[in-house]
């Protein structure tokens, strides 16, 4: 990227070489934080507009053009709110919990390739790292629920733990099915493989099954409806974040939306070719990769919102039955089929 190189040169002229590294790291971190905040804000707005559309309402449309500044106003409101807490809460863990949730989702955001050259950290175990990071996020929810000293919060946290641990398995296995084709966990190499056709085409039937399982499990992993047992308003108040207010609540809220973005981004990268354009129509303009990546991701985000406003909530036992009696066996069989297809060379190559 020319811009990044010129920024690099400018810094080298300004500062000694040792400090430049740190400044660049800080700048990259700042960029990602900004992206994080902006994404979070506008995903909330998108969710509200989509919800309104599905319910034949108009939704927020007063603050700014078409309500574009509505979530800004909400963020300001949340910032200025008093931070209430309970006297009998375990203060240390109560304050720690939101950071767990938000730091893990920020770490996961760091390794996505936005275009061929625009990637903060191309770690060689990319996909596995994402799964590892997402398994830590649940600890924040468990801690928050327990330390609030509130029975609704505790029940919400327990449900969240059961749900996330179960559905993590499906996410891992469905991604593993796709790794059989790519032969690599590195995100940039996964996209490289897809230059001969997106993986959902290359792997045809098992890939489509894996994609469906991944989207179901991903929705459950982010604790969204129809799997929002964790914060089922009608039974649990607000679930694990009942006792949180102001910015601490906003952290949980923001992390939930960023996690939704991450799940959609993984799906876009693994199944739909990441920043690759359809049929290579804009191959000569590399920076358009950002556009394609975001377009694919937002279509998948929209799909998840569609789920949310279409399906009724599941009961806990239905939730566990779905995972352990249906998704997991289908997934295991699917991996074997995929292995056979790759072994016999039956993948579609464009």
């Amino acid at each position: 990227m020319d811009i990044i190189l010129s920024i690099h040169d400018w810094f080298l002229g300004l500062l000694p070489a040792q400090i430049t590294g740190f400044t660049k790291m800080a700048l990259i971190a700042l960029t990602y934080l900004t992206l994080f905040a902006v994404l979070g804000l506008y995903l909330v707005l998108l969710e509200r507009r989509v919800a309104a559309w599905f319910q034949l309402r108009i939704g927020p449309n007063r603050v700014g053009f078409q309500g574009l500044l509505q979530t800004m106003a909400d963020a300001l409101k949340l910032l200025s709110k008093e931070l209430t807490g309970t006297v009998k809460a375990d203060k240390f863990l109560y304050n720690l919990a939101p950071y767990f949730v938000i730091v893990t989702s920020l770490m996961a955001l760091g390794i996505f390739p936005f275009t061929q050259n625009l990637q903060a950290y191309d770690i060689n175990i990319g996909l596995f790292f994402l799964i590892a990071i997402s398994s830590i996020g649940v600890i924040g929810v468990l801690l928050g629920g327990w330390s609030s000293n509130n029975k609704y919060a505790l029940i919400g946290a327990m449900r969240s733990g059961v749900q996330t641990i179960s559905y993590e398995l499906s996410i891992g296995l469905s991604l593993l099915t796709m790794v059989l084709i790519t032969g690599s966990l590195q995100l940039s190499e996964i996209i490289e493989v897809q230059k001969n056709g997106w993986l959902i085409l290359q792997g045809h039937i098992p890939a489509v099954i894996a994609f469906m399982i991944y989207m179901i499990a991903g929705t459950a992993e982010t604790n969204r409806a129809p799997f929002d047992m964790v914060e089922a308003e009608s039974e649990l108040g607000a679930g694990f974040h009942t006792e949180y207010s102001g910015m601490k609540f906003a952290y949980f809220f923001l992390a939930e939306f960023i996690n939704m973005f991450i799940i959609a981004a993984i799906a876009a990268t693994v199944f739909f070719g990441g920043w690759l354009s359809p049929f290579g129509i804009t191959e000569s303009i590399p920076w358009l990769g950002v556009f394609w990546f975001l377009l694919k991701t937002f279509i998948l985000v929209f799909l998840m919102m569609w789920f949310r406003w279409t399906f009724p909530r599941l009961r806990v036992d239905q939730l566990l039955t779905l995972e352990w009696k249906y998704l997991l066996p289908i997934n295991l069989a699917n991996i074997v089929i995929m292995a056979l297809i790759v072994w016999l060379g039956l993948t579609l190559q464009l």
Partner: protein
Amino acid sequence: MLRSVVYLLFVLIGIAGIYFLADYNFLAAIQLTVYAGGVVVLIIFSVLLVHHIEMQLEVANRKKQLLTGLLCFAGLAVFLTTIYSHPFDVAGKTVTTTTAQIGERLLDYGPGGFILPFEVISVLLLAAMIGAIIIAKGEKKIKNKQPHKSPEPDEEVSLETEQEIQLDRILNEKSTVETE
């Protein structure tokens, strides 16, 4: 009690950080999934089940605290002096181990391959998994034999056993990952 679990979690994440620094990414991610994401979550679950937030743990008396502090300090001092006095060899080149290399070595039956331990552990884990399922199912049968008046308790029981199976499976799953 939960705080100590969180401190343990920080230690485990720190160890994962050391693996990352050593450029051994695969092991670091395993460390994060298995220990931080799995074992610690299980420990948190058990704490949630047995410990209430208002329960105060017994605080040891001052003498014992002092003794523990001194012992820890002495251990740290010995450790640091050893580390700083030991002449370490600086490795000439760094090698990044990829997942493909690990996999090939694991299924290699030539010299230096790990196929035999891998298979033995797989069989052991399979046996453990079947055992767990049988134990969980056996309980269900006994409970079903009892005459019940309302359907609700039965449902609860089946749910519990299901969760038990799940927990066992998760445990097994984790140990599989661990050994791999």
